[in-house]
Protein backbone atom coordinates (compact mmCIF):
# COMPACT_ATOMS: atom_id res chain seq x y z
CA UNK A 1 0.00 0.00 0.00
CA UNK A 2 1.25 3.49 -0.78
CA UNK A 3 0.43 6.85 0.85
CA UNK A 4 -2.25 7.71 -1.69
CA UNK A 5 -4.17 4.49 -1.08
CA UNK A 6 -3.74 4.93 2.64
CA UNK A 7 -5.18 8.42 2.52
CA UNK A 8 -8.31 7.18 0.80
CA UNK A 9 -9.13 4.79 3.64
CA UNK A 10 -7.65 6.58 6.64
CA UNK A 11 -11.04 7.98 7.74
CA UNK A 12 -12.65 4.54 7.74
CA UNK A 13 -9.62 3.07 9.47
CA UNK A 14 -9.64 5.71 12.19
CA UNK A 15 -13.38 5.28 12.78
CA UNK A 16 -13.03 1.50 12.72
CA UNK A 17 -15.58 1.14 10.00
CA UNK A 18 -16.13 -2.06 8.09
CA UNK A 19 -13.44 -2.92 5.56
CA UNK A 20 -11.62 -5.94 4.24
CA UNK A 21 -9.27 -7.49 6.77
CA UNK A 22 -6.39 -7.63 4.31
CA UNK A 23 -6.77 -3.96 3.43
CA UNK A 24 -6.88 -3.06 7.09
CA UNK A 25 -3.70 -5.03 7.80
CA UNK A 26 -1.91 -3.45 4.86
CA UNK A 27 -2.97 0.01 5.99
CA UNK A 28 -1.77 -0.57 9.55
CA UNK A 29 1.47 -1.98 8.22
CA UNK A 30 1.95 1.06 6.04
CA UNK A 31 1.27 3.43 8.90
CA UNK A 32 3.95 1.66 10.89
CA UNK A 33 6.44 2.30 8.12
CA UNK A 34 5.40 5.81 6.98
CA UNK A 35 5.64 8.59 9.55
CA UNK A 36 3.35 10.91 7.62
CA UNK A 37 0.58 8.37 7.33
CA UNK A 38 1.01 7.44 10.99
CA UNK A 39 0.49 11.09 11.97
CA UNK A 40 -2.49 11.31 9.67
CA UNK A 41 -4.03 8.23 11.21
CA UNK A 42 -3.43 9.60 14.67
CA UNK A 43 -5.05 12.92 13.76
CA UNK A 44 -8.04 11.18 12.30
CA UNK A 45 -8.40 9.04 15.39
CA UNK A 46 -8.20 12.04 17.69
CA UNK A 47 -10.75 13.90 15.59
CA UNK A 48 -13.05 10.89 15.54
CA UNK A 49 -12.73 10.56 19.30
CA UNK A 50 -13.44 14.25 19.79
CA UNK A 51 -16.48 14.14 17.53
CA UNK A 52 -17.73 10.99 19.26
CA UNK A 53 -17.38 12.73 22.61
CA UNK A 54 -19.26 15.76 21.33
CA UNK A 55 -21.98 13.58 19.84
CA UNK A 56 -22.24 11.60 23.05
CA UNK A 57 -22.55 14.74 25.10
CA UNK A 58 -25.36 16.04 22.91
CA UNK A 59 -27.01 12.68 22.39
CA UNK A 60 -29.83 13.40 24.78
CA UNK A 61 -30.17 17.10 24.11
CA UNK A 62 -33.80 17.97 23.54
CA UNK A 63 -35.88 21.05 23.10
CA UNK A 64 -37.32 22.42 26.34
CA UNK A 65 -40.84 21.37 27.29
CA UNK A 66 -42.17 24.86 26.67
CA UNK A 67 -41.46 24.49 22.95
CA UNK A 68 -43.74 21.48 22.82
CA UNK A 69 -46.41 23.27 24.83
CA UNK A 70 -46.32 26.30 22.57
CA UNK A 71 -46.49 24.06 19.56
CA UNK A 72 -49.50 22.24 20.96
CA UNK A 73 -51.26 25.53 21.63
CA UNK A 74 -50.50 26.65 18.10
CA UNK A 75 -51.80 23.35 16.78
CA UNK A 76 -55.12 23.78 18.60
CA UNK A 77 -55.56 27.30 17.25
CA UNK A 78 -54.61 26.16 13.77
CA UNK A 79 -57.01 23.23 13.93
CA UNK A 80 -59.88 25.41 15.06
CA UNK A 81 -59.25 28.06 12.44
CA UNK A 82 -58.82 26.02 9.28
CA UNK A 83 -58.44 22.48 8.03
CA UNK A 84 -54.86 21.34 8.40
CA UNK A 85 -54.69 20.10 4.84
CA UNK A 86 -54.25 23.75 3.92
CA UNK A 87 -56.04 23.32 0.63
CA UNK A 88 -58.40 26.18 1.45
CA UNK A 89 -55.55 28.60 1.99
CA UNK A 90 -53.87 27.43 -1.14
CA UNK A 91 -57.04 27.80 -3.16
CA UNK A 92 -57.59 31.30 -1.83
CA UNK A 93 -54.04 32.21 -2.58
CA UNK A 94 -54.27 31.14 -6.20
CA UNK A 95 -57.66 32.76 -6.64
CA UNK A 96 -56.29 36.03 -5.28
CA UNK A 97 -53.29 35.84 -7.56
CA UNK A 98 -55.50 35.14 -10.58
CA UNK A 99 -57.80 38.05 -9.69
CA UNK A 100 -54.83 40.38 -9.36
CA UNK A 101 -53.49 39.35 -12.76
CA UNK A 102 -56.93 39.76 -14.32
CA UNK A 103 -57.31 43.24 -12.88
CA UNK A 104 -53.91 44.19 -14.15
CA UNK A 105 -54.68 42.97 -17.66
CA UNK A 106 -58.07 44.70 -17.73
CA UNK A 107 -56.50 47.93 -16.51
CA UNK A 108 -53.81 47.82 -19.17
CA UNK A 109 -56.32 47.09 -21.92
CA UNK A 110 -58.58 49.92 -20.73
CA UNK A 111 -55.69 52.37 -20.74
CA UNK A 112 -54.67 51.26 -24.20
CA UNK A 113 -58.20 51.53 -25.58
CA UNK A 114 -58.66 54.94 -24.05
CA UNK A 115 -55.41 56.22 -25.47
CA UNK A 116 -56.17 54.97 -28.96
CA UNK A 117 -59.80 56.12 -28.95
CA UNK A 118 -58.74 59.52 -27.64
CA UNK A 119 -56.61 60.20 -30.66
CA UNK A 120 -58.57 58.76 -33.59
CA UNK A 121 -61.84 60.70 -33.22
CA UNK A 122 -59.87 63.85 -32.75
CA UNK A 123 -58.21 63.30 -36.07
CA UNK A 124 -61.53 62.34 -37.58
CA UNK A 125 -63.19 65.48 -36.34
CA UNK A 126 -60.65 67.74 -37.93
CA UNK A 127 -60.70 65.74 -41.12
CA UNK A 128 -64.50 65.82 -41.09
CA UNK A 129 -64.49 69.57 -40.77
CA UNK A 130 -62.34 69.80 -43.82
CA UNK A 131 -63.60 66.99 -46.00
CA UNK A 132 -67.31 66.41 -45.29
CA UNK A 133 -69.67 68.78 -47.06
CA UNK A 134 -72.40 68.68 -44.42
CA UNK A 135 -69.96 69.66 -41.71
CA UNK A 136 -69.36 73.33 -42.06
CA UNK A 137 -68.67 74.55 -38.60
CA UNK A 138 -65.82 74.20 -36.18
CA UNK A 139 -66.50 74.02 -32.54
CA UNK A 140 -64.14 73.71 -29.68
CA UNK A 141 -64.40 73.53 -25.97
CA UNK A 142 -62.85 76.81 -25.20
CA UNK A 143 -62.55 78.46 -28.56
CA UNK A 144 -65.15 80.52 -30.40
CA UNK A 145 -66.60 80.61 -33.83
CA UNK A 146 -67.47 83.75 -35.61
CA UNK A 147 -70.56 83.94 -37.77
CA UNK A 148 -71.68 87.00 -39.55
CA UNK A 149 -75.33 87.94 -39.32
CA UNK A 150 -74.86 91.12 -41.30
CA UNK A 151 -72.33 91.87 -44.00
CA UNK A 152 -70.30 94.16 -41.78
CA UNK A 153 -71.20 92.88 -38.36
CA UNK A 154 -70.17 89.35 -37.58
CA UNK A 155 -71.84 87.76 -34.58
CA UNK A 156 -69.76 85.84 -32.14
CA UNK A 157 -71.07 82.59 -30.84
CA UNK A 158 -69.26 81.92 -27.64
CA UNK A 159 -68.41 78.49 -26.47
CA UNK A 160 -68.13 78.24 -22.67
CA UNK A 161 -64.66 79.09 -21.55
CA UNK A 162 -63.89 81.47 -24.38
CA UNK A 163 -63.69 85.16 -23.98
CA UNK A 164 -65.95 87.35 -25.98
CA UNK A 165 -64.52 89.44 -28.72
CA UNK A 166 -66.31 91.65 -31.18
CA UNK A 167 -63.71 93.34 -33.17
CA UNK A 168 -65.46 93.52 -36.46
CA UNK A 169 -64.91 91.96 -39.76
CA UNK A 170 -61.86 89.77 -39.20
CA UNK A 171 -62.38 87.34 -36.39
CA UNK A 172 -60.31 84.45 -35.19
CA UNK A 173 -61.40 81.26 -33.55
CA UNK A 174 -58.80 79.26 -31.74
CA UNK A 175 -58.65 75.52 -32.09
CA UNK A 176 -57.71 74.34 -28.68
CA UNK A 177 -55.33 71.42 -28.06
CA UNK A 178 -57.61 70.26 -25.35
CA UNK A 179 -60.59 70.00 -27.62
CA UNK A 180 -62.20 66.60 -27.17
CA UNK A 181 -64.26 65.54 -30.16
CA UNK A 182 -66.30 63.03 -28.24
CA UNK A 183 -67.24 65.62 -25.67
CA UNK A 184 -71.01 66.04 -25.42
CA UNK A 185 -70.71 69.75 -24.78
CA UNK A 186 -68.77 70.15 -27.98
CA UNK A 187 -71.37 68.25 -29.94
CA UNK A 188 -74.25 70.27 -28.53
CA UNK A 189 -72.45 73.51 -29.28
CA UNK A 190 -71.79 72.33 -32.79
CA UNK A 191 -75.50 71.69 -33.26
CA UNK A 192 -76.36 75.13 -31.93
CA UNK A 193 -73.86 76.73 -34.19
CA UNK A 194 -75.25 74.89 -37.14
CA UNK A 195 -78.70 76.35 -36.41
CA UNK A 196 -77.34 79.88 -36.21
CA UNK A 197 -75.35 79.24 -39.24
CA UNK A 198 -78.43 78.45 -41.25
CA UNK A 199 -80.03 81.64 -40.06
CA UNK A 200 -76.94 83.73 -40.83
CA UNK A 201 -74.28 82.92 -43.32
CA UNK A 202 -74.05 80.14 -45.83
CA UNK A 203 -70.70 78.49 -46.10
CA UNK A 204 -69.25 75.88 -48.36
CA UNK A 205 -67.34 72.93 -47.01
CA UNK A 206 -63.66 73.30 -46.31
CA UNK A 207 -61.40 72.81 -49.31
CA UNK A 208 -57.88 71.62 -48.63
CA UNK A 209 -55.20 74.09 -49.53
CA UNK A 210 -51.80 72.82 -50.63
CA UNK A 211 -50.47 69.39 -49.71
CA UNK A 212 -50.14 69.79 -45.97
CA UNK A 213 -51.61 67.09 -43.80
CA UNK A 214 -54.71 67.99 -41.86
CA UNK A 215 -53.32 65.99 -38.96
CA UNK A 216 -51.14 68.98 -38.14
CA UNK A 217 -54.30 70.71 -36.97
CA UNK A 218 -54.33 68.41 -33.94
CA UNK A 219 -51.82 70.78 -32.42
CA UNK A 220 -54.18 73.68 -32.81
CA UNK A 221 -54.85 76.31 -35.43
CA UNK A 222 -56.66 79.51 -36.28
CA UNK A 223 -59.65 80.35 -38.38
CA UNK A 224 -59.08 83.61 -40.18
CA UNK A 225 -61.83 85.53 -41.96
CA UNK A 226 -60.57 87.12 -45.18
CA UNK A 227 -61.94 88.67 -48.32
CA UNK A 228 -60.88 87.35 -51.70
CA UNK A 229 -61.64 88.24 -55.29
CA UNK A 230 -64.70 86.34 -56.45
CA UNK A 231 -62.56 84.72 -59.15
CA UNK A 232 -60.95 82.68 -56.39
CA UNK A 233 -64.14 80.56 -56.34
CA UNK A 234 -63.24 79.24 -59.77
CA UNK A 235 -59.96 77.82 -58.48
CA UNK A 236 -61.94 75.48 -56.21
CA UNK A 237 -64.41 74.52 -58.91
CA UNK A 238 -67.26 76.71 -57.69
CA UNK A 239 -69.52 78.58 -60.09
CA UNK A 240 -69.07 82.32 -60.55
CA UNK A 241 -71.69 84.93 -61.34
CA UNK A 242 -69.97 86.94 -64.04
CA UNK A 243 -72.11 89.99 -63.24
CA UNK A 244 -70.54 90.13 -59.79
CA UNK A 245 -67.05 89.13 -60.85
CA UNK A 246 -65.58 92.37 -59.60
CA UNK A 247 -66.97 91.94 -56.12
CA UNK A 248 -65.20 90.25 -53.30
CA UNK A 249 -66.22 87.15 -51.47
CA UNK A 250 -65.70 86.31 -47.78
CA UNK A 251 -63.82 83.20 -46.82
CA UNK A 252 -62.57 81.45 -43.69
CA UNK A 253 -59.00 80.26 -43.95
CA UNK A 254 -57.87 77.57 -41.57
CA UNK A 255 -54.27 78.32 -40.60
CA UNK A 256 -52.14 75.74 -38.85
CA UNK A 257 -49.74 76.42 -36.00
CA UNK A 258 -46.95 76.54 -38.55
CA UNK A 259 -48.62 79.56 -40.15
CA UNK A 260 -49.55 77.76 -43.35
CA UNK A 261 -53.09 77.76 -44.72
CA UNK A 262 -54.58 74.26 -44.54
CA UNK A 263 -58.11 74.73 -45.76
CA UNK A 264 -60.55 77.33 -46.90
CA UNK A 265 -64.30 77.74 -47.06
CA UNK A 266 -66.34 80.43 -48.72
CA UNK A 267 -69.03 82.28 -46.82
CA UNK A 268 -72.03 84.10 -48.13
Amino acid at each position, binding site marked *: MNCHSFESIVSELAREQTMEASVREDALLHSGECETCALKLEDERLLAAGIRALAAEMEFAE*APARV*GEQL*LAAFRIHRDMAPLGHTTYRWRYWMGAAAAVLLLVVGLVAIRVRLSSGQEPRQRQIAKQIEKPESSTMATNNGSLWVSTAPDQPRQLTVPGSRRRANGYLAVARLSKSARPGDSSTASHADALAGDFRGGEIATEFFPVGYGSTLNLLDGGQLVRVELPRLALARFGLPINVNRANEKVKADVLVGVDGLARAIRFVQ
Partner: protein
Amino acid sequence: MKTHCEPSDSELLQSMLAGDEKALTALYRRRQGSVYRFALQMCGSQAIAEDVTQEVFMVLMSDGHTFDPARGSLNSFLLGVARNHVLRRLKRERFYVSIAEDSDNDPTAKERYVTTDGPLDDLSRTETVESVRKAVLSLPERYREVVVLCDLQEMNYVEAAEVLGCAIGTVRSRLHRARAMLIEKLHPAREEKVTSATVKSARCLA
Protein backbone atom coordinates in the same frame (compact mmCIF):
# COMPACT_ATOMS: atom_id res chain seq x y z
CA MET B 1 -43.05 -6.22 18.45
CA LYS B 2 -42.54 -2.58 19.24
CA THR B 3 -42.53 -1.59 15.61
CA HIS B 4 -45.87 -3.28 15.06
CA CYS B 5 -47.44 -1.31 17.88
CA GLU B 6 -46.06 2.08 16.99
CA PRO B 7 -47.41 3.84 13.90
CA SER B 8 -44.95 5.03 11.30
CA ASP B 9 -44.00 8.65 10.82
CA SER B 10 -46.20 8.91 7.74
CA GLU B 11 -49.20 7.51 9.58
CA LEU B 12 -48.67 9.91 12.44
CA LEU B 13 -48.36 12.76 10.00
CA GLN B 14 -51.61 11.86 8.27
CA SER B 15 -53.39 11.66 11.62
CA MET B 16 -51.90 14.95 12.66
CA LEU B 17 -53.03 16.63 9.45
CA ALA B 18 -56.50 15.25 10.12
CA GLY B 19 -56.45 17.12 13.42
CA ASP B 20 -55.28 14.41 15.81
CA GLU B 21 -53.47 16.10 18.67
CA LYS B 22 -52.04 12.87 20.01
CA ALA B 23 -50.40 12.17 16.67
CA LEU B 24 -48.66 15.51 16.83
CA THR B 25 -47.48 14.81 20.34
CA ALA B 26 -46.14 11.40 19.36
CA LEU B 27 -44.45 12.75 16.24
CA TYR B 28 -42.96 15.64 18.15
CA ARG B 29 -41.57 13.40 20.87
CA ARG B 30 -40.09 11.10 18.30
CA ARG B 31 -38.44 13.69 16.05
CA GLN B 32 -37.86 16.88 17.99
CA GLY B 33 -34.55 15.65 19.43
CA SER B 34 -32.79 15.25 16.11
CA VAL B 35 -34.16 18.56 14.82
CA TYR B 36 -33.13 20.40 17.97
CA ARG B 37 -29.66 18.84 18.04
CA PHE B 38 -29.10 19.59 14.38
CA ALA B 39 -30.04 23.22 14.88
CA LEU B 40 -27.95 23.49 18.04
CA GLN B 41 -24.90 21.92 16.44
CA MET B 42 -25.28 24.11 13.38
CA CYS B 43 -25.66 27.46 15.11
CA GLY B 44 -24.41 26.89 18.68
CA SER B 45 -27.29 28.85 20.17
CA GLN B 46 -29.98 27.24 22.28
CA ALA B 47 -32.40 30.08 21.65
CA ILE B 48 -32.11 29.72 17.89
CA ALA B 49 -32.30 25.94 18.14
CA GLU B 50 -35.56 26.24 20.09
CA ASP B 51 -36.99 28.69 17.57
CA VAL B 52 -35.98 26.49 14.66
CA THR B 53 -37.50 23.40 16.28
CA GLN B 54 -40.76 25.20 16.78
CA GLU B 55 -40.75 26.60 13.26
CA VAL B 56 -40.03 23.20 11.74
CA PHE B 57 -43.07 21.64 13.39
CA MET B 58 -45.19 24.65 12.50
CA VAL B 59 -44.21 24.08 8.88
CA LEU B 60 -45.14 20.43 9.30
CA MET B 61 -48.57 21.46 10.56
CA SER B 62 -49.23 23.86 7.71
CA ASP B 63 -47.38 22.19 4.81
CA GLY B 64 -47.19 18.62 5.98
CA HIS B 65 -49.15 17.48 2.94
CA THR B 66 -46.15 18.36 0.76
CA PHE B 67 -44.13 15.56 2.35
CA ASP B 68 -43.59 12.73 -0.13
CA PRO B 69 -42.45 9.44 1.45
CA ALA B 70 -41.07 8.35 -1.92
CA ARG B 71 -38.48 11.12 -1.79
CA GLY B 72 -37.11 10.29 1.63
CA SER B 73 -37.88 9.76 5.28
CA LEU B 74 -39.82 12.22 7.40
CA ASN B 75 -36.69 12.74 9.49
CA SER B 76 -34.82 13.87 6.36
CA PHE B 77 -37.73 16.13 5.47
CA LEU B 78 -37.73 17.71 8.92
CA LEU B 79 -33.96 18.16 8.92
CA GLY B 80 -34.15 19.70 5.46
CA VAL B 81 -36.67 22.25 6.71
CA ALA B 82 -34.55 22.82 9.80
CA ARG B 83 -31.51 23.39 7.63
CA ASN B 84 -33.29 26.05 5.62
CA HIS B 85 -34.40 27.83 8.77
CA VAL B 86 -30.97 27.61 10.35
CA LEU B 87 -29.23 28.98 7.28
CA ARG B 88 -31.76 31.81 7.14
CA ARG B 89 -31.17 32.65 10.77
CA LEU B 90 -27.42 32.47 10.37
CA LYS B 91 -27.63 34.81 7.45
CA ARG B 92 -29.76 37.19 9.45
CA GLU B 93 -27.68 37.05 12.58
CA ARG B 94 -24.17 37.56 11.41
CA PHE B 95 -22.90 37.20 14.95
CA TYR B 96 -22.81 33.43 14.65
CA VAL B 97 -21.25 33.45 11.24
CA SER B 98 -18.51 35.75 12.39
CA ILE B 99 -17.02 32.94 14.45
CA ALA B 100 -15.93 31.18 11.31
CA GLU B 101 -14.72 34.35 9.66
CA ASP B 102 -12.79 35.44 12.70
CA SER B 103 -11.20 32.09 13.26
CA ASP B 104 -9.95 31.97 9.71
CA ASN B 105 -8.33 35.37 9.91
CA ASP B 106 -7.36 35.66 13.54
CA PRO B 107 -4.26 33.61 14.43
CA THR B 108 -5.12 33.65 18.14
CA ALA B 109 -8.44 32.01 17.39
CA LYS B 110 -6.64 28.92 16.20
CA GLU B 111 -4.63 28.80 19.38
CA ARG B 112 -7.81 28.53 21.40
CA TYR B 113 -8.53 25.21 19.72
CA VAL B 114 -4.94 24.05 19.75
CA THR B 115 -3.67 21.23 21.91
CA THR B 116 -0.14 20.51 20.93
CA ASP B 117 0.05 17.02 22.34
CA GLY B 118 -3.48 15.91 21.56
CA PRO B 119 -6.67 17.06 23.18
CA LEU B 120 -7.64 13.71 24.62
CA ASP B 121 -4.30 13.26 26.37
CA ASP B 122 -3.79 16.59 28.04
CA LEU B 123 -7.11 18.27 28.37
CA SER B 124 -10.11 17.19 30.27
CA ARG B 125 -13.00 15.67 28.38
CA THR B 126 -15.11 18.78 28.72
CA GLU B 127 -12.41 20.96 27.27
CA THR B 128 -11.95 18.55 24.40
CA VAL B 129 -15.63 18.56 23.63
CA GLU B 130 -15.66 22.33 23.82
CA SER B 131 -12.71 22.70 21.47
CA VAL B 132 -14.28 20.30 18.95
CA ARG B 133 -17.59 22.11 19.23
CA LYS B 134 -15.93 25.44 18.50
CA ALA B 135 -13.96 23.96 15.65
CA VAL B 136 -17.15 22.58 14.12
CA LEU B 137 -18.91 25.91 14.55
CA SER B 138 -16.02 27.68 12.89
CA LEU B 139 -16.40 25.64 9.71
CA PRO B 140 -18.12 27.23 6.73
CA GLU B 141 -21.80 26.26 6.66
CA ARG B 142 -21.58 23.84 3.75
CA TYR B 143 -18.88 21.84 5.52
CA ARG B 144 -20.42 22.23 8.96
CA GLU B 145 -23.70 20.68 7.91
CA VAL B 146 -22.11 17.51 6.54
CA VAL B 147 -20.08 17.07 9.73
CA VAL B 148 -23.20 17.57 11.83
CA LEU B 149 -25.26 15.15 9.75
CA CYS B 150 -22.69 12.44 9.06
CA ASP B 151 -20.46 12.57 12.12
CA LEU B 152 -22.60 14.00 14.92
CA GLN B 153 -26.03 12.71 13.82
CA GLU B 154 -24.42 9.56 12.39
CA MET B 155 -26.44 9.63 9.18
CA ASN B 156 -25.26 7.73 6.15
CA TYR B 157 -24.35 9.51 2.95
CA VAL B 158 -27.68 8.77 1.30
CA GLU B 159 -29.72 10.31 4.11
CA ALA B 160 -27.39 13.29 4.32
CA ALA B 161 -27.74 13.81 0.58
CA GLU B 162 -31.54 13.77 0.98
CA VAL B 163 -31.39 16.43 3.67
CA LEU B 164 -28.96 18.63 1.78
CA GLY B 165 -30.54 18.05 -1.60
CA CYS B 166 -27.26 17.23 -3.28
CA ALA B 167 -25.44 14.23 -4.73
CA ILE B 168 -23.89 11.57 -2.53
CA GLY B 169 -20.49 12.27 -4.04
CA THR B 170 -20.85 15.90 -2.98
CA VAL B 171 -21.54 14.82 0.59
CA ARG B 172 -18.52 12.53 0.53
CA SER B 173 -16.14 15.15 -0.82
CA ARG B 174 -17.43 17.86 1.51
CA LEU B 175 -17.05 15.58 4.48
CA HIS B 176 -13.50 14.73 3.51
CA ARG B 177 -12.65 18.39 3.18
CA ALA B 178 -14.45 19.25 6.41
CA ARG B 179 -12.51 16.66 8.38
CA ALA B 180 -9.24 17.95 6.98
CA MET B 181 -10.22 21.46 8.05
CA LEU B 182 -11.14 20.26 11.51
CA ILE B 183 -7.80 18.53 11.90
CA GLU B 184 -6.10 21.66 10.74
CA LYS B 185 -8.01 23.73 13.31
CA LEU B 186 -7.42 21.31 16.16
CA HIS B 187 -3.79 20.46 15.41
CA PRO B 188 -2.14 23.27 13.48
CA ALA B 189 1.32 22.52 14.95
CA ARG B 190 1.05 18.94 13.87
CA GLU B 191 -0.08 20.05 10.44
CA GLU B 192 3.23 21.81 10.00
CA LYS B 193 5.06 18.62 10.91
CA VAL B 194 2.90 16.72 8.48
CA THR B 195 3.68 19.19 5.76
CA SER B 196 7.42 18.81 6.21
CA ALA B 197 7.08 15.07 6.48
CA THR B 198 5.00 15.01 3.33
CA VAL B 199 7.85 16.67 1.50
CA LYS B 200 10.20 14.01 2.79
CA SER B 201 7.93 11.15 1.84
CA ALA B 202 7.29 12.74 -1.52
CA ARG B 203 11.01 12.65 -2.18
CA CYS B 204 11.08 9.10 -0.96
CA LEU B 205 8.23 8.10 -3.25
CA ALA B 206 9.78 9.87 -6.16
